[in-house]
């Protein structure tokens, strides 16, 4: 065996980095969630490929077979997939609420609105007269 015997980890790393890139480089929240999903499957592949034994079979006991793959990662990942869809649904419903509150699911739009809101809040806190001066300055900036 040479270094190419590690190829399963490299596939995992490539998938993981694709997911990571989607999460950090895209503004759209739905795309971010899909990216997180790809990241998640890369971890699933990591576990399952660790459990694979060459020449083994699925871990359902039968007298005909002697060599089985490791069942423990299967259990961990099987539950992780179902928990994953439940948390994805939670994330999607957060996105839906964000859309309803902000009218957009693009990160920069949301941040711009937040900055405006904060500005208005601080203007109210300082009182209106002061705020008028402030707002002129800030708008120019």
């Amino acid at each position: 065996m040479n270094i190419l015997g590690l190829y399963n980890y490299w596939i995992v790393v490539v998938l993981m980095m694709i997911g990571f890139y989607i999460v950090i480089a895209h503004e759209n929240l739905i795309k971010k969630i899909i990216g997180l999903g790809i990241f998640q499957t890369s971890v699933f592949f990591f576990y399952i490929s660790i459990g694979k034994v060459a020449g083994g079979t699925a871990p359902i006991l039968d007298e005909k077979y002697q060599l089985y793959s490791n069942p423990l990662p299967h259990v961990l990942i099987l539950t992780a997939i179902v928990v994953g869809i439940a948390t994805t649904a939670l994330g999607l419903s957060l996105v839906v609420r964000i859309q309803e509150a902000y009218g957009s699911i693009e990160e920069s739009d949301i941040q711009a609105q937040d900055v405006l809101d904060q500005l208005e809040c601080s203007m109210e806190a300082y009182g209106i007269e002061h705020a008028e001066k402030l707002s002129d300055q800030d708008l120019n900036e």
Partner: protein
Amino acid sequence: MRDLFAVVMMSGIYSLISASLFLDLDAVDVAFTEAAVGAGISTLLMLASLKLVGRYEHKSRYKPGLALGVVLVTGALLIYGTLDMPYFGLADAPAQLHVAPRYINDSMAEIGVPNVVTSILASYRGFDTLGEVVVVFTAGIGVMSLLLVSKQTKEESQTMVPADMRQQIILRVVAKFMLPLILLFALYVQFHGDYGPGGGFQAGVIFAAGIILYTMLFGLSNSQKLFQRKKMELLTAVGVLIYGGVGVVCMFMGGNFLDYSVLRHDPVHGQHLGILLVELGVGITVASVMIVIFFKFTWRTVKHKYKE
């Protein structure tokens, strides 16, 4: 791609392909779950939320250079980290030596269930699975409270919501034939999980997928008549209670929490009974959480359409 519809479809295909890869890696139960969850339910939920948030992505204002740099550096470091890992498929890798041989060699005598994945899931690592079921339940509660139905929509819910696919006669007829088969298959997966691939998690998802198919073709109102929202919301908790209840009963009968051996005189029979009940609890919670989540998302879409 700016069209998110295409992106969601691609991610569904990706899930299906990864399911077949899991199959190739001997993880039949995992492949089962991934095919039902990733290619089925997750794609549907994504589409439902696309309907609510808009189909097209805006042009990104970020410069991808920095992100690409971060990703490449992290990837290179991770690849460097893999150089110490054991080769793929080795039978004497550290992961294969610790607890796995015990599960494979002794589980038949201790649990009496051929599918080792089921016996680990429900018995050896029963605590872990209880935790996962509670997480699914909590996520269900989270979705319910985030997409809460307001008073206004309660009045609207009295009115009938017509099905969008009323005209699709072929689909409706075929679905009527398939629906009992899907539900029957879900029950088979549920109760045959001890002997073949399957179990509560997969069965719950398949059952929910059947109900979702019915909802899509025959309308939300019809389906909510059958599966009333209140009852489904109660069922999410009932599943968790069955699971926890089995554990408490074990304690009352003199064993440890979730130690099923004391349920019957013969420890192996006790394990059988315990696994059956626990998987039933898992199945009920997973199915009802998925159905409730789907109802919440569709209800939002329908509501939006009727406001406009």
